[in-house]
C-alpha cells in the first residue's frame, strides 16, 4: 500500500510544517487492537483516499464524527471496514480522534477531471435541486458552500466522489438508515444513478471555501 504510506508521510509533513499543536493522539497514528490506526486510511491530516473511497475526515464537526462512530456501533450504518474499527473504540478514542480531525485544514480534493456538462448538472442539483420531483437543493441543508451547518449537517464539499456516491447509494438502497428524520434518504431515493454521479463529481471539485464556485 504505497499510496497509504505516502498519505501518512504527507500528513505528517503537513502537521510538522503548519501546526505546532499537540501530537496526534495514538489512536490516530498507532491504532489500538482491532481499531486499526485511522491515519493508515484517512491520513493524519484527514485527507482520506479518493481511489479507495476512504472519506475526508478533516473539519468534520466532532458531534457528527462521534455520531457516525456510534451509528456504526449500533448498526444503523454498516461498513465491513469501519464497523469493527468503531466497535473497538472507547469513548476516549472517539473524543480524541474527533477533536484531532476537526482541527485539520480541509484539503483540496484531488478531483478527477470530469465532463464539464456532468459537473454543470451536478452543480445545478446542489444549488437549485429539482423541485419538479421534490428534490431540495443539497446546499440548503449543507450550507451555500457545501461545508456544512453545525451541528447536524456535515460538510460534503471537497469529499471524494467515490465515497459520496457510495453514501447516496447506501441511503437509496436502504443500507444506511442513520439520518435524522430520514432527511437524506428522502433526497437520495429520488435521484437517478446519473444524478448521483454528477452531484458527487461536482462536490469533489469544490475543495476549500471559495474554491471553484
Amino acid at each position, binding site marked *: 500500500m504505497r499510496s497509504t504510506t505516502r498519505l501518512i508521510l504527507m500528513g505528517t509533513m503537513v502537521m510538522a510544517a503548519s501546526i505546532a499543536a499537540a501530537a496526534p493522539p495514538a489512536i490516530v497514528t498507532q491504532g489500538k487492537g482491532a481499531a486499526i490506526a485511522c491515519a493508515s486510511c484517512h491520513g493524519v491530516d484527514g485527507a482520506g483516499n479518493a481511489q479507495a473511497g476512504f472519506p475526508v475526515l478533516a473539519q468534520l464537526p466532532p458531534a457528527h464524527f462521534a455520531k457516525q462512530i456510534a451509528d456504526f456501533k449500533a448498526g444503523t450504518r454498516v461498513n465491513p471496514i469501519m464497523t469493527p474499527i468503531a466497535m473497538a473504540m472507547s469513548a476516549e478514542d472517539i473524543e480524541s480522534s474527533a477533536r484531532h480531525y476537526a482541527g485539520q485544514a480541509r484539503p483540496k480534493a484531488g478531483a478527477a477531471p470530469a465532463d464539464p456538462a456532468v459537473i454543470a448538472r451536478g452543480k445545478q442539483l446542489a444549488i437549485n435541486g429539482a423541485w419538479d420531483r421534490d428534490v431540495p437543493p443539497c446546499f440548503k*441543508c449543507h450550507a451555500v458552500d457545501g461545508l456544512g451547518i453545525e451541528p447536524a449537517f456535515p460538510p460534503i464539499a471537497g469529499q471524494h466522489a467515490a465515497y459520496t456516491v457510495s453514501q447516496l447509494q447506501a441511503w437509496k438502497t436502504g443500507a444506511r438508515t442513520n439520518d435524522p428524520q430520514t432527511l437524506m434518504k428522502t433526497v437520495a431515493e429520488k435521484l437517478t444513478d446519473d444524478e448521483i454521479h454528477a452531484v458527487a463529481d461536482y462536490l469533489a471539485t469544490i475543495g476549500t471555501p471559495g474554491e471553484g464556485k
Partner: protein
Amino acid sequence: MNESLGYLLCGLALGAMVSGCDRPPPPATTEAAPAATAPVAVAPARFAPPAESDIPENEFGEAVLLGKNIFVNTQQYAKDFVGNGMNCANCHLDNGRKADSAPLWAAYVLYPAYRQKTGQIDTIQSRIQGCFLYSMNGKPPALDSKEMTALVTYHYWLAKGAPTGVKMTGQGYLKVAKPAQKPDVARGRAIYENNCAICHGANGEGIKARGGYAFPPLWGKDSFNWGAGMHRVDTAAGFIQANMPYGLGGTLSDQEAWDVALFMNSHERPQDPRFSGSVAQTRDQHHDENCLYGRTPEELAAALEKQAEAATAAEKIKPAAEQLEGISPAVSH
C-alpha cells in the same frame, strides 16, 4: 407610501363570521359580488415557469436576474428595506417557483384584484410592499424604485405563458382542513422538537452559517412580525403542511400542522407596525380570531369551532365557493 390603507390586515369586520382575517372568498362576498362576475376557471395541469437558464442575455434579462437576486438574497440586495433576518424565498420556496408556496407565477396573473375587506384594489406591487412591511419587518420600497421594478420584472418573467386572471393549481398556500381536535400548544411543542428543532433551533431562533441565516428563525426579533400573513395559524398550517419539514413536505397530518403552527405562533415576534399603543385596540382593529395577537390559544380554538359550524351551515346553502374574477385571493396584508 400613500396607500397605507391597502396594507390593512384583517381590516374591517364585516359581520360575525366574515371578520377581517377570514379566508376568502367568504359567502358574504359571493352574495355581494355583481351578478355578472363569472367563476374563474381553474387551470388543470401544473404550470411550469421558464428555466433559469432561459433568462435572456439582454437588459430585460438583467432586470429579471436582479429581481431574482433580491428575492433569494433580500438581506444583501435590498437590505435597506429589510428589518429582520429573512429572505423572500424563505416562505416562497424554490426561488418563488414552488407550487403551494405562494409561487410568483400564480400570483402575477391574479392582480390587480379587489379586496373587500380593505375596499381597495390589490396590485402585485402592493402585495410585494405588504411582504416587505410585515414578512420582512421592514419598509416597502417605492413603486418606482429599482428594487420594485426588478421584483415585478422577475414575477412577470416567471409567469411567462400563464393565463391572466386564472387561479392556477398551486396558487397561494394550502388550505388545511380544520383539525378534528382543538389545536394544542403542548402537542405542537412535541412536534416541533421532533420535526423542526434540528433546523430551526431549540428556541425557534434559526441557525446561522456563513454570515446569514441558513435556517430562518420562526419567532423572535429576526423573524416575521405580528402583521405578516404567516402569523395567522391557518396560513402557517397550510405552509407547513405542504413544505415542512424541509424536503419532507406533505408528511405531517392536518392535525400536526395545526398544532405545530399554533405552537410556533404562540411566541413573541416583532410588533405589528400598525400598533396603536394598545394591544387590545390593535387586535380589535386589525386581527381576527385566526391568530394569537392579544388572544389565548383557547379563544382561538373556540373561534375555530364557531367558524367550522358556520362553514358547514354555509355549505348547505351554497356549494363550495369558487374564486371569483377580480376578487383578490389575499387573506392578509
